[in-house]
């Protein structure tokens, strides 16, 4: 037994003795830190590994999942997880054949226009873990354990991995894993894992690079092949480059504003600007455009519908606070309970007055 592990044992013994009195023993760093209580570890240790270590017992059906989905997820991801409006699609691009092979064929053929989450993910544990820890985006960790089971079941059903009457639980989640369409689609045979290699029980090839160049110094090639130039639209897509560079030095930024200089006027922080910031900060703009519908209606469309109604502002404020469904389509707007009343009033006034940026 090494000196190190002996001293550890000693620390642990003192720790055990001290735990009884509610204080932690002083090890090398006397008085620093305290013992974690089981309830504290239980509260934070929510991760689920691919072998389902950490998964808490529970269950949820596809139907239950669909109900939760419509209420809490569809506004961003679409009713079928197909939406490309706010985030890239979750579902799509996999086939029943992929479920059999465990390889997503469109990735192999390289003909998929976009990669959905289900095309990429090899481990069903990842879906459970992520939804449980981070979703919904504005109210993470608000789902119950069974709701998460249901949501995963619903997604798996959308991707034709499990049937419509499936009830996902800790008992049968391994069966779902065995049908994941890209379960054989991952490789760790590369040189970019900085820990122990696979040959020693770790990951990868031990850091061996896959691409080799040499430091040739002269006459390294006979011609320069330019493979790609900046597309014209991309030059102006990032604002005026003259304003993104220092006004002194050996170079200047190129003026890509398309305007004569000195037309730029500084904007004062108006009510409109403050409300715009509020809408940006709270993710409103992800679903609502000013003039146009994204997932929910455009602000100008809302203002037009409520124009002239005496209680328009109160009605709208109630909708923002509690959420709503049906007025503009089937996809519900989730409640925005995180907003203060005064901020809701400010947003509603701003919407009714045209939702101007400044």
């Amino acid at each position, binding site marked *: 037994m090494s000196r190190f592990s002996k001293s*550890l044992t000693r*620390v*642990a013994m003192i*720790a055990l003795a001290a735990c009884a009195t509610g204080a*932690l023993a002083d*090890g090398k*760093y006397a008085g620093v830190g305290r*013992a*974690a209580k089981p309830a*504290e570890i239980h509260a934070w*240790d929510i*991760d689920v*590994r*691919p*072998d389902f*270590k950490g998964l808490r017992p529970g269950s949820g059906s596809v139907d239950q999942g669909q109900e939760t989905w419509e209420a809490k997820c569809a506004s961003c991801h679409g009713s079928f997880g197909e939406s490309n409006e706010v985030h890239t699609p979750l579902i799509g691009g996999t086939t029943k054949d992929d479920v059999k092979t465990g390889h997503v064929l469109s990735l192999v053929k390289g003909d998929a226009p976009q*990669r959905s989450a289900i095309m990429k993910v*090899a481990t069903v544990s*990842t879906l459970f*873990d*992520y939804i449980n*820890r*981070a979703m919904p985006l504005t109210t993470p960790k608000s789902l119950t354990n069974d709701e998460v089971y249901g949501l995963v079941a619903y997604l798996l059903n959308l991707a034709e991995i499990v049937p419509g009457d499936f009830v996902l639980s800790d008992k049968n989640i391994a069966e779902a894993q065995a049908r994941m369409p*890209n379960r054989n*689609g*991952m*490789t*760790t*045979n*590369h040189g*970019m894992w*900085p*820990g*122990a290699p696979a040959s020693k029980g*770790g990951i990868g090839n031990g*850091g061996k690079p896959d691409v*080799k*160049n*040499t*430091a040739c*110094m*002269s006459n*390294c090639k006979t011609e*320069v092949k*330019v*493979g*790609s*130039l*900046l597309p014209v639209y*991309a030059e102006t897509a*990032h*604002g005026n480059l003259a*304003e*993104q560079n*220092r*006004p*002194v030095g*050996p*170079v200047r930024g*190129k003026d890509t504003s398309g305007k004569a200089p000195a037309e730029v006027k500084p904007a004062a922080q108006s009510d409109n600007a403050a409300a715009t910031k509020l809408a940006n900060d709270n993710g409103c703009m992800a679903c609502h455009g000013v003039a146009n519908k994204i997932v929910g209606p455009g602000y100008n469309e809302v203002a037009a519908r409520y124009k002239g109604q005496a209680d328009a502002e109160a009605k709208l404020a109630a909708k923002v606070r509690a959420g709503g469904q049906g007025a503009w389509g089937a996809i519900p707007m989730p409640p925005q309970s995180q907003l203060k009343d005064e901020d809701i009033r400010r947003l509603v006034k701003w919407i009714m007055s045209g939702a101007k940026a400044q």
Partner: protein
Amino acid sequence: MADQPTQRGRVRPAPEHFLTEADIAEVKDGRRDFLRKAFLTASAAMAAPAIVRAEDGDPNILTLPPWTTSLGQPVAARPYGLPSQYEKGLQRRESPGLTRMSQVSVAFTPLQGLFGIITPSGLHFERHHQGWSDIDPSKHRLMVHGTDDGFVKQPKVYTVDDILRLPPVSRMHFIECGANTGMEWGNVAVPTVQYSHGMLSCSEFTGVPLRLILEDCGIDWKKAKYVLAEGADGSSMTRTIPIELVQSDEVLVAYGQNGEMLRPENGYPLRLVVPGVQGVSWVKWLRRIEVGDKPWATKDEAIHYIDLMPDGQHRQYTSTQECKSVITTPSGGQILLDKGFYNISGLAWSGRGKVKQVDVSTDGGINWRRARIEGPVNSKCLTRFNIDWVWDGKPAILQSRAMDETGYVQPSYGQLRAVRGTKSIYHNNAIQSWKVAESGEVSNVQVL
């Protein structure tokens, strides 16, 4: 408060030394516009040589400016200092259209205007998965435990007070997002180095080696193979870290950044520092370390941050940032003012150690010259290089190519794509090319 004793030892105000009796009388009478009048008189006196003729010389020399002829502002006028108003162009910026929600987005560092190797904390790039918060440090906790009993003898909870009591180290390291230059895998997509390479920053980090904390909890090094790091933000972002990097003492639980506490956007009050590894593993707002024996395949290592290869397989757990470099000036979107001498300057770095040499080409990679490496040269840290260049006014293509201490040489686009195709998004470390036109305009091009 009027009867408070007069403060001693103060420097007496000076007016009586240069004001006339009449001026002083005016002040005493309450007619306090004397200073304005005095200033007007002075201005008139200065404006007298307004008939400065260009052939006499530079009016900026011949006519003294107000800052040379007036009293400047007091100390602590801005208790937390700010850059000059003339530097306002150099800011973190989003790339329009890259993401659809600014809480789940990236802001890029303006590399085109930075000197040396340290990124000012206010210009450090941002990448958040679910927005950032300014966490109350008195309410923040770091929990350390094992996947099962036996990985650590005593699971523990540390306050920020606790972490700041432990023996710290300070080290300079670069942090680069795995998706840096990701928009450019298939073709040129962005105009400037800010957007092509700006998910890159470098700071002096101060913190406690994670090894010390794990040993304080009685880790069993034989059983432990990986740790999971988790953030306290809404996403509670998680990544798997190899135990070997922890054992080597490189991984830090950091609280300091360039001499002050971490900025909230960069993880205040605690973040993980994982030198050489892509930024996503440098978990911000660090709240939990779990010690285990298998990787976790979290969302950011099973759906994102996986590299699609031409055969349709995704590489998983790609973490190391391989050797890379870029010329930051002159660079895309800039204009050379004239022919003649220029200093070509740029940054080089490697996740496998120190930068050993950087070569620069001005003819698109036919011939190369060795650049000067500026010190200090640290492991897994940005390294500044410079080289003289006289522009003859003809078209040129500027490139830099770095080599690290392992002998690995940064590849060309042709070499990289031959192995990895064009769809992998992550880990694009190809040689960057900037084309200089006869007009002096510099633009982003890709040389194969």
